[in-house]
């Protein structure tokens, strides 16, 4: 867009484009190059603020190994990206991810970068969800902007 339009028009046009995208769900998709797996959840409740990469939770990987019920019933994960107040203390305590990621069932927490593997500043989202296609990807968080410290 920068290439084609003078800067004066850009802000106004961006507004129009956003509105059109919200209706049609087409235009904004062009601005979302990410093509991760359907159902990949990015969780960035605390990561950016804590100076670590956001977590990418691959649904497909876990679905191959466990039925939905194990996490969403037995472990108490709500059906909402970012809706579970997970932190490292709880995980170490065996709650949420920590029920398996304890070195017994799956890798334990010292392998930080296997879970905290997202691009810095990626907002919490269910990648490729219908809502994301209709409404658009949430804007990047502050730390994704140029010049932000990691």
């Amino acid at each position, binding site marked *: 867009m920068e290439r084609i*339009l003078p800067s004066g028009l850009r802000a106004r046009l961006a507004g129009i484009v956003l509105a059109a995208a919200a209706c049609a769900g087409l235009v904004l998709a062009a601005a979302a190059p990410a*093509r*991760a797996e359907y159902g990949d959840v990015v969780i960035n409740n605390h990561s950016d603020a804590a100076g670590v990469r956001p977590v*990418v939770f691959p*649904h497909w990987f876990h679905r191959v190994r466990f039925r939905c019920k194990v996490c*969403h019933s037995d472990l108490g994960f709500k059906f909402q990206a970012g809706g579970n107040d997970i932190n490292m203390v709880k995980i170490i305590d065996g709650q949420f991810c920590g029920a398996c990621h304890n070195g017994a069932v799956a890798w334990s927490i010292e392998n930080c*970068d296997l879970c905290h593997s997202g691009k810095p500043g990626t907002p919490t989202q269910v990648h490729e969800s219908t809502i994301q296609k209709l409404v658009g990807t949430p804007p990047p968080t502050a730390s994704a902007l140029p010049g932000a410290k990691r």
Partner: protein
Amino acid sequence: MRDLLAIVTCVAIVALPAAALDKGAGKATYEKTCALCHGPGLAGAPKYGNKAEWAPRLKAGTAKLYTSALKGTANGMPGKGGNLSLSDDEVKAAVDHLLASVGGASPPAAAAKAASAAPAAVVAAPAPKVASAAPVAVVAAPPPVAPPTAPRTAPAAPVATASADPNAFNRLLTAPGKRNPSPAEDGIHDPSNPGTHALQPPLTALAGMPPLNAGNRVNWVSSLEGGKIRPRWDRDDGAAAAVVMDLNIVREVKGSMPDVVYPHKQHTEWLDCSNCHPQIFIPQKGANQISMASIMLGQKCGVCHGKVAFPVSECRLCHSKKKEGTMPAAAVAGARK
């Protein structure tokens, strides 16, 4: 007259049958299809009548612009502006109308006028025109093409080039080679993170599972039924078996769509009753209002379908029971129960 006109423009521009259409048709097509984006300049589309925006594109030549309009561009313009019912000639006439607004090329009608007014010019016309950036303009002699007074800093080349991939304009489609990329290439994972490269690429896990044309591109339900995957029902006990309930719920729907058959069986293979009842669905016939709008906004079935279970694009996986009386008897008999 029509033949004469065709000769003029065919000589001027390679393959321009658009000449057969009058100015009004081009204008109508423009207003119906093109103006949506080229009017306000949506999504980077060069605006109608804006010479500065069109100047770099005109340099590529009118024939190139026709190609862009017909085939679409890498910048996001869909082929024929997304209206595939248009004929090539109609599209070209609309391009002529659009270009006339920036003085780039005259509409064919103007060319016709010029030709009829001065038929002698036609004879002499061909030679100098071929290589011109906007050849027809020479025939009709409107004001000459405005030089790019405010040239863009970026190269103009990609603007007019048609995409090599004929489906590139359709951003809802993913080419087979671009599905299931490895974590380092998926746009979500950070490739500079060492751990990213240790993660399992999706294809190594999903290969061999029955395909589906959406979601993870695999049919999870068939995979489970066919034993391609054996996900645990219990975190610790690998032998625990799912508590399956086999009960189909038929939901009659409005309109001509087939009715929905909700199979408890396939759901209870994966989920516990308490995952859905009573929070999402009240376990009582007729107690749940469900619409496609709410599903697409992540409610009811949309809590999972459209996020992790197959998305709403797969209409017939849910809308699977043909309405009786709307189809020939043979088709009804063949429909799934």
